[in-house]
């Protein structure tokens, strides 16, 4: 639902950065979207194409990488990915994110909750 407002922020950041670098054209933008967010890469891509119309990013190739969830356990120091099992009632939701090693709930999400504009490729 907020894919549009996030896309608008991304688009204006891309145009701003491209202008700062005196670009004549944006060739490519690379995004990373975590599996824990409620953002849909397909929708983000659709909105970006709409928002880039009549701008220097109109022809940009939009690349979106989905990022799996990884965590760090504060109890046993486990660090790594967690498997999203079928048995989870709501797979992408993980309301019960716990350490796969010691089952502790005291964890820190390392990746999977991001919406990252990683890089842009521009032409001067």
């Amino acid at each position, binding site marked *: 639902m*907020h894919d549009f407002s996030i896309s608008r922020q*991304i688009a204006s950041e891309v145009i701003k950065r491209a202008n700062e670098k005196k*670009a004549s054209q944006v060739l490519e933008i690379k995004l990373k979207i975590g599996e824990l967010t409620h953002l849909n890469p397909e929708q983000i891509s659709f909105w970006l194409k709409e928002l880039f119309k009549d701008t220097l990013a109109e022809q940009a190739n939009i690349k979106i990488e989905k990022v799996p969830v990884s965590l760090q356990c504060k109890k046993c120091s486990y660090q790594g990915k967690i498997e999203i099992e079928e048995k989870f009632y709501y797979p992408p939701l993980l309301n019960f994110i716990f350490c796969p090693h010691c089952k502790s709930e005291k964890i820190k999400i390392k990746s999977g909750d991001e*919406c990252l504009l990683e*890089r842009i490729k521009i032409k001067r």
Partner: protein
Amino acid sequence: MRIIKAGEGEILDIELEEDFLKKNRQFAKKNKSLLEQNNVRAIDVMGSIGSGKTSLIQLLTSILREKFRIAVIAGDLTTDIDAKRIEQEKVQVVQINTGKECHLDANLVKKALLSLALERIDVIFIENVGNLICPADFPLGAHQRLVVISVTEGPWMVVKHPYIFKDAHVVAINKVDLAEAMQVSPQKLIEDIAKINPRIKAFPVSCRQNKGIMQVIEALSL
């Protein structure tokens, strides 16, 4: 000195590493420390349109204002209808109009917090925009999240909208006085919620009949 100038047609790869959701989380963190510096407890109140968020806040305020100095931040796309309703309780109110946004974000809440006399407040209720999906992605810096749902939203309300319960602490199932007419079981809704997040405390409530309000207050440790 050799000066290398970029020529026309040159291609540059620029690393940005700009996280759009993280920005909101950083603002939320700042809000939380601003609240804590002033010893203020904040509660983010979420739920769908017409579930009874404002009614519940009004009731909570009318009871709790004997004990705490209360303020309310009311979020809506447009209008100040909710803020005017809360004003009747004689507490500080700020209305945020989000325009076209489907959720409150931490930056808007920061502006609202800065407009309040925080040193003279103990508890703030932040009424989010009526929406069951988007607010889940945008923490505001509140200490607790209270979700208000109602039996008039039908028997599948919880299973269809799991996201909003992800980070919630307390759920009020409102309008239980209409449960029979709606043929919706509040107990079934409580069971559905427990499947999504077993740590949530959920209670049947009727704002109209003033029932279950004290349980919500207790669950929020107020």
